[in-house]
């Protein structure tokens, strides 16, 4: 099913939950709503589900305005952050609930519940009450209940945020696989950018109720249009260095500030040269420890070392109280206080206007 939001807004008095959001979800697409806490993700989802009435704007399913269609007639499956399993019903009754409401024959209900439960690997738990299940099992029941009625649209509201890291990884893969197998159009709300990046075909980045960007994960990562997107997408987050100038000397573009001076590729450099002090963004993975001093290295002092297992996350203090992060091999045994020289790979460097916070490359 194709979903379209047109100038959708939700206000309570003068509290703005969602502010004029327009976007389209293609049939079979997996879209993530990504944004910090309180930005209006749940509110948008509940409007799509028909539980909240939009203050203004339209919601269209397959080109038909559904603003006044009650939730029960929208054929939606939804998974809640709290799972919202009915505590007084067994797992079987929870999953069977949408089918019972459709008054399907008993035999068919039994069959379909069993099929979905087996698919989710909870076929042996059907007699239990939700209170007797682990978080991961409850999660599967909630997913089963959403899937059992063959919905045209699946809505997920931070379904994995109550699980431990390992289980989150497993369930992430599982949800993605089911969605691809069944081809159900899905909207997935999360504030975890890794989840959004790994699962979604497209990501809608929301901040303060406004749509910041709506694009594929690669686009958002490679060509962030605003400072907010650049800082929000990517883990560890992009290094943002203020007060940087780009100048052209002898046919080469240089980005310079008191702490360093490194060359920039001309495609990027020419767009921002001579614009005065701007913000430079460089991802931690584009910073490496320099093999030898070639005059283009950036010198700094190791400030904090955070072991992440495979890598160490190194925080380096540059001249003028500028800090940058990068990932280093733990075998290098970097320690706080060590003087190091880094190499900035500027082929993917970003530049932003400090006033408008828009990208100077893709804005």
């Amino acid at each position, binding site marked *: 099913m194709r979903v379209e939001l047109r100038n959708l807004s939700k206000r309570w008095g003068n509290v703005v939950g969602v502010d004029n959001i327009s976007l389209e979800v293609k049939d079979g697409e997996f879209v993530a709503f990504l944004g910090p806490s309180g930005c209006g993700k749940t509110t948008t989802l*509940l409007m799509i*589900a*028909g*539980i909240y009435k939009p203050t203004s704007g339209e919601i269209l399913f397959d080109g038909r305005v559904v603003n006044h269609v*009650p*939730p*029960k007639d*929208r054929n*939606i*499956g*939804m998974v*809640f952050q*709290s799972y*919202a399993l*009915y*505590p*007084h019903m067994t797992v079987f009754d929870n999953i069977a*609930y*949408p089918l019972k*409401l*459709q008054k399907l024959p008993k035999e068919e209900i039994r069959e379909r519940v069993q099929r979905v439960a087996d698919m989710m690997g909870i076929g042996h738990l059907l007699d239990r009450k939700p209170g007797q299940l682990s978080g991961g099992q409850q999660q599967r029941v909630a997913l089963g*209940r959403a899937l059992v*009625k063959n919905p045209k649209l699946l*809505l997920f509201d931070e379904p994995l945020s109550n699980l431990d890291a390992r289980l989150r990884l497993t369930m992430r893969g599982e949800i993605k696989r089911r969605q691809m197998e069944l081809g159900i159009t899905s909207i997935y709300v999360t504030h975890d950018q890794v989840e959004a990046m790994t699962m979604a075909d497209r990501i809608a980045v929301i901040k303060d109720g406004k749509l910041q960007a709506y694009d594929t994960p690669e686009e958002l990562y490679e060509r962030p249009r605003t400072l907010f997107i650049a800082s929000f997408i990517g883990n560890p987050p992009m290094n943002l260095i203020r007060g940087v100038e780009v100048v052209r000397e002898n046919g080469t573009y240089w980005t310079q500030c008191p702490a360093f001076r490194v060359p920039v590729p001309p495609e990027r450099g020419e767009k921002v040269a001579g614009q005065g002090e701007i913000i430079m963004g460089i991802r931690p993975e584009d910073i490496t420890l320099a093999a030898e001093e070639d005059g283009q290295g950036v010198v700094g002092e190791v400030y904090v070392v955070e072991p992440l297992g495979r890598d160490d996350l190194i925080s380096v203090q540059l001249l003028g109280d500028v800090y940058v992060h990068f990932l280093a091999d733990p075998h290098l045994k970097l320690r706080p206080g060590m003087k190091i020289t880094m190499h900035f790979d500027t082929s993917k460097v970003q530049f932003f206007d400090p006033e408008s916070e828009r990208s100077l490359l893709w804005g």
Partner: protein
Amino acid sequence: MEAVVQEQAMEMVARRRSWRVSLEAFSFMSPAMVLVTLFFFIPVVLLLWISLTNLSSNTFGNPLCVGGMRDFCESLGIRVGRVEFVGVSNYRRLFADRFFPKILGNTLFYVFTTLIFFNVGLALILALLTTHIERRTGFLFRAIWLLPRITPSVIYIMMWKRISADAPYGILNQFLVPLGFEPKAWLKEAPWLFVIITNGFVGASFGMLIFSSAIESIPRDYIMAAKVDGASTLQIIRTIIIPLIKWPLLFVTTYQTLSLLASFEYILLLTNGGPGLYRTEVWSLTAYHRALQTYFGNNQWGYGAAWGFVLVVIGIIFSLIYLRVFRFDELVQEPKIDAL
């Protein structure tokens, strides 16, 4: 397996410390036990004692000075009157009373009609309505509904007497006559209707408060999930809300059965058991009439006490039935902390 072993271990620990624990438990329970003893057990024993005597205005004397105690009491100068121990004869008289079946039937009719239609039924409807409208409006409505409860009984019933009075005074008649209805003495025409309404309007407010707070504490996610799953409002009420407020429902049912069994002041003020002979006379009102208000000025305390004592027994029987049927023991979960 593991659970069983753990349980056994816990039992052993519990037994070893049981003496200390039960002492502790008793010390915690003692204030409640003192109150229950003072205000329930002692009065019930006195009630039973009086019901076994012929204490009345005619025989007036200290009911403890019967049988072998008479001479001793007299020597102390206590008034002994003609009180005598009469065994179960008051009870025999009670069950042989011509109006006993009528009064029992009245009581059951009054208690269960008021309970089902008002104290639980209307209370539930009010709770559902006031929790489904805007919060502040709902709160205001519930506050207004509480007013009769804090109005003195006499004033409240006087209002209803005016409403139901015969033409040309009755407020009801003043509305109905212009619409082409015959004026009627409503209270005499339909005494039960007014007895049940006056009690029910006040009685419903208790359940309304309990149910609406129970409904408001149901997580909104359940309701949202049910809507998305395809449930209509009525289906949500039937399949989600009612099962989730099961315990408050059972509690209110039990509590209100008992308080209706014992209540009589509105009936006393409104119809005084009439019109005619025993038309709206209920059990507790009978006990009151026998003991404290008779046509001949003879207060038969002993006989009235017998009615009162049987009512206590009926109340206990109802409590036991409710306890069993509703499985209240499941409500009280095993504490999750170990014995100290």
